[in-house]
Structures are given as structure tokens and as C-alpha cells.
């Protein structure tokens, strides 16, 4: 109990520096803005990684009268969020050099505001805090997608995503209002105490909250916005959406559902399993004939979301562990894939289509090889990071006796191998000339680092699984 302000120091640090960024932006000439703000954001994010590492407690602690609760699960996901944002900043630096905008400063500090929202969202322990942080993150992302000059695709995306996202937020808030009505409190533990059986109001609130979260995650009945938004948004923003928003939404889902709806775990587990399997299949099947790589990766994101959701049907502790591990792998893979696309994108969105990658191997062997690593990791081929993520989820499902779900996930992954192999085929076996714009060193460095991590964590998955186990035990300790 009590305020315990120092627990939230990393979040306050990010927020304060974003506000300082607004003021600095007003007094800088345009030509130094990109360099200055990229350095500024990298510095802030780098410092906050250390702040998060040193301030996350193993024994869960609460702040603001238990509106916020921090444990290692929060700490770990915040590190992951900050790492993905760091890569997003590196990629943005190159992207902003290639594409003109009047809002360079705005781009970087809105990114910092979105990071703040995501960080607060994973540490929220109360319905209103969760909603506000969710909106801070979402609204920042809507703004980010509309900032580029003469980019009507991006502006269309911002409007579409805004409308769809508002519907999702409204649905979530209806669910929260019902939960508050049932329990008379908005703190997770107290709400959880009031919910024991599946009465009609509980069912309604559960359905509304689940639909809202599925909206944000882009799982099947509510996946309509995903391809358009991923395709049309500027690539660094898509990277941010794909990695950070997904991590934040999934971790917030774990932190909301296990304390609040624990007595009904088998009911909503089944729901998530059905939705997960359908999403995994739908995403994989719809990605088969996409020509634009960003659109293809959007469908693959639906498929990956389905796999993660299906994992929630297994035993709670194992489910949290495997979901966390998968999120780690997914964040690294998404960041690498979209960083790679941004690296190849030149004027007029050339380099986003698969056909632009013809014979990439002869132009740049190193880039072609990192393409193989990224896409094979997304497909889940053994020595890479993506394999272990799928492996743990399948083990969790089989151990829980859900062999049918596991087999369905396996079949969907086998289908998805087809479209993950297509870019590789184009890069190595097709005749033609790849369009390769001048390589920006920072984007290149970001891609190299993430590809390196994909290989290293693929060879030594116990590095991540140990960390995930620590996070899991810390989270479970907070539930007792």
C-alpha cells in the first residue's frame, strides 16, 4: 500500500524525457533534428533498460495503492519492449533519411510516449490504469502512422486503425464497467475475489473483455484491420506495432486473466484454443498468395497470434512460460523482418514486393543470408530461435492432453512454411535484378544485431528459458 513512487521510476523517466523532447524540438533547426533525436531516444531507451533491470523486484511490489504491480514478468517484458523500441529507433533513423517529413521531432517523442504506454500497460494491476495505458500506446501509434509527407497510404492507415482501435477500446471498457459493477472495485485481486461462477453478467463481461483484447491482438474474428494497417504504415511504425504492441497486449492479457478469471480458466482456455487454431489456419492460408512482404508478414502475425492464444489452453504455469518464451522469439523475429524490409525500401515503396527481391544473393550475399535466417526462424526451422518457441508451446499443449490442438498448430505451421520459403526462393533462384537502395549503416546494424540474436538464442535457448522461468515464478508468487 501507499504511493511507493520509486517503483515507477523507469516509466517516469521515459515520460519526462518525452516531454523534454517536445520542448527541445521547438528550438532545433530541421537539419540536425534527425541525428539529435535519434541519439536522444537511443540514450533514453538504453538508460531505461538499466533502470528497469535494477528496479524490478523478484518479490512483487505494488505502487499507487496497488494500481501498479511489478514483478519479474513485468520487468522482463519491459526490457523486451525497450529493446524492440531501440531497434525501431535505429531503423527510423535510416527511414527518416529516405522519406521526408516535417515532423521529425514529433516522430521520436511520440515513439517515446508509445513506449511509456506499453511499459505502464504491462505493469498495470487495475482496470482503469490498464485502459488508460492501452490508449496512450494506441493513440501514439495512430499518430506515428500519419506523420510522413505525401504518404496517403499512411494517413488512410491512421484513420482505419483509429476507428477499429476505438471500437476495440470501447468493447474492452464495457467489459471493465461490468466487472466494476460486479465487484465494486477495479483492482485485479478484489475483482477476482468477486468472480467465482459463470453467471450471466460474468459471462458477458468475459466475452466483452476477450473480444476487446482479440481486437487489439488481431486474432481471427477481429483480424480485418491487420493486413491493411501493417501494409500501409511506415515500416518502422509497423515494426513497432508488430513487436511492442503485441508484447504489451499479451502480457497485459496474462496479468489480467490469471488473477481475475482464475476460477473459469478452463472455460476461457477453450475459447482461446478454438480462436487460436482458427487464427493460425486463417493467417497461414491467407498469406499464401500475397505479393507484398509487409502484407504477408501481417497475415503471418495473425497466424503467430493464433499459436500463442492456443497455448493458453494448457496448464496455467506452463502456458505463461511458453507464451513468454514465444513473445521473446516473436519480438526478435518481427523486429528483424521489418528492419530488413525497411533496409530494402527505397523511393516510392520499391523493395516491398517479393518480386523486387529477385536475385538478391548476387547483389548482396550477406543480406540474402540474413533473409534466410529471419524467414526460417519465423517458419520455425530447428537451429533457430523460432523453432524453440513453437517447440515449447507444442510440449505445453501435449502435456496438458490437448493433442488435437497441438496437431492443428503443427499443420498450420507446415502450411506457413510455403510462404516463408517464397522470399528465399526469389532471393536465390529467380533471374532478375534486385532493387537495392544505398544501405543505411544504422538500419543495417540493427538487422545484423537481431539476426545474430536469432542464431545465438536458437543455439542456446536455455538463456531465455531460464529468464522466463524466473519471471514465471515471480509472477506466480504475486498470485498467492
Amino acid at each position, binding site marked *: 500500500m501507499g504511493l511507493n513512487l520509486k517503483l515507477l521510476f523507469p516509466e517516469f523517466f521515459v515520460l519526462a524525457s518525452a*516531454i523534454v523532447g*517536445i*520542448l527541445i524540438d*521547438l528550438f532545433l533547426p530541421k537539419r540536425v533534428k534527425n541525428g539529435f533525436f535519434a541519439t536522444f531516444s537511443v540514450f533514453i531507451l538504453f538508460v531505461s533498460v538499466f533502470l528497469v533491470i535494477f528496479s524490478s523486484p523478484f518479490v512483487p511490489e505494488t505502487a499507487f495503492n496497488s494500481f501498479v504491480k511489478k514483478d519479474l514478468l513485468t520487468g522482463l517484458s519491459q526490457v523486451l519492449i525497450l529493446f524492440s523500441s531501440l531497434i525501431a529507433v535505429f531503423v527510423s533513423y535510416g527511414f527518416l533519411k529516405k522519406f521526408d517529413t516535417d515532423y521529425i521531432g514529433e516522430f521520436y517523442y511520440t515513439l517515446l510516449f508509445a513506449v511509456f504506454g506499453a511499459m505502464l500497460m504491462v505493469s498495470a494491476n487495475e482496470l482503469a490504469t490498464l485502459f488508460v495505458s492501452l490508449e496512450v500506446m494506441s493513440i501514439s501509434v495512430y499518430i506515428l502512422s500519419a506523420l510522413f509527407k505525401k504518404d496517403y497510404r499512411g494517413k488512410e492507415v491512421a484513420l482505419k486503425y483509429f476507428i477499429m482501435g476505438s471500437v476495440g477500446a470501447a468493447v474492452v471498457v464495457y467489459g471493465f464497467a*461490468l466487472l466494476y*459493477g*460486479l465487484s*465494486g472495485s477495479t483492482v485485479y485481486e478484489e475483482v477476482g475475489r468477486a468472480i467465482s461462477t459463470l453467471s450471466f*453478467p460474468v459471462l458477458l463481461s468475459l466475452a466483452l473483455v476477450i473480444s476487446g483484447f482479440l481486437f487489439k491482438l488481431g486474432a481471427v474474428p477481429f483480424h480485418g484491420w491487420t493486413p491493411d494497417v501493417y501494409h500501409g504504415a511506415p515500416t518502422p511504425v509497423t515494426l513497432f506495432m508488430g513487436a511492442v504492441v503485441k508484447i504489451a497486449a499479451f502480457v497485459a492479457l496474462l496479468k489480467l486473466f490469471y488473477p481475475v478469471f482464475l476460477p473459469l480458466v478452463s472455460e476461457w482456455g477453450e475459447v482461446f484454443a478454438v480462436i487460436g487454431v482458427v487464427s493460425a489456419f486463417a493467417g497461414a492460408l491467407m498469406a499464401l498468395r500475397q505479393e507484398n512482404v509487409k502484407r504477408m508478414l501481417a497475415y503471418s502475425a495473425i497466424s503467430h497470434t493464433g499459436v500463442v492464444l492456443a497455448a493458453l489452453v494448457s496448464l496455467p504455469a506452463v502456458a505463461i512460460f511458453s507464451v513468454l518464451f514465444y513473445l521473446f522469439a516473436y519480438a526478435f523475429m518481427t523486429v528483424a523482418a521489418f528492419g530488413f524490409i525497411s533496409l530494402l525500401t527505397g523511393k516510392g515503396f520499391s523493395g516491398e514486393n517479393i518480386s523486387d527481391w529477385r536475385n538478391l544473393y548476387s547483389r548482396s550475399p550477406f543480406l540474402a543470408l540474413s533473409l534466410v535466417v529471419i524467414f526460417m526462424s519465423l517458419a520455425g526451422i530447428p537451429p533457430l530461435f523460432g523453432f524453440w518457441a513453437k517447440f515449447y508451446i507444442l510440449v505445453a499443449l501435449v502435456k496438458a492432453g490437448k493433442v488435437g490442438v497441438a496437431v492443428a498448430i503443427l499443420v498450420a505451421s507446415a502450411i506457413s512454411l510455403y510462404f516463408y520459403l517464397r522470399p528465399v526462393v526469389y532471393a536465390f533462384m529467380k533471374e532478375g535484378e534486385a532493387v537495392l537502395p544505398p544501405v543505411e549503416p544504422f538500419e543495417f546494424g540493427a538487422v545484423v544485431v537481431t539476426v545474430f540474436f536469432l542464431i545465438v538464442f536458437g543455439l542456446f535457448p536455455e538463456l531465455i528459458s531460464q529468464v522466463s522461468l524466473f519471471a514465471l515464478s515471480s509472477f506466480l508468487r504475486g498470485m498467492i
Partner: protein
Amino acid sequence: MKVYIVLFLFFLVALAVALLVPNVNLITNRFLRIDRSNPEKFEPYECGIPKIKPLTGHYFAFFYIVALIFLLFDLETVFLFPWAVAFRELGVLGIVEVFLFVGILLVGFVYAIFKGALKWE
């Protein structure tokens, strides 16, 4: 608990009314209306003035920025009133918080002024 169930029932009734009333009108309209439509009826001005040019051009919308800035200060007062009512109970922490809040809003206002949102041309 009982109060909330009543509220919940009210919510259900309101939802039913909200879904029913507009749609009933739409459905009955479809069957009862007298359909004598001609191209002139779909013109922007039904009174007979022909439109001058196609409505695809851009037009100047400045008032929305002023409205946004107005919203900034409107919200500020919305939050300041409850603070003023509970001023004594909140004590020193309340004053610090309110100054932080106004400070953050002021940053937004400074941004608006420097970007020329209040310049009228």
C-alpha cells in the same frame, strides 16, 4: 451489489432500445415510403441550384485547431474543480500533483503557440 444489478438491467434495456428504435424506423420506412426518386433529388442542393464543381477539392479547416486548444483548457478546468473541492484533504501532495498536471498541459500549450496554431491569417 443490488444497485449494480439494477444498473445492469438498465444497461440492457437501454441497449435494447438503442438497437430497436432506429432500426424499426428504417424497416418501416422501407415499406411505407413513396418512392418517386429522380436524379435531381440526389443533388447537394435540392432547391434547384446546380452545383458548380465536383466536391473533391480541399477546403480550409482552421477552426479545429482552435477547438483542440479549447479542449486543452476545458479539460484542465474539469480536473481542477474536483481538486479545488478536496484541496484541504489532499494537502501538500495535491498541490505538487496539480502543478505537475498544469505543467504538462503548459508544454502542450507552448507547443501549440510555437507551431503557430493561434496565428490568424
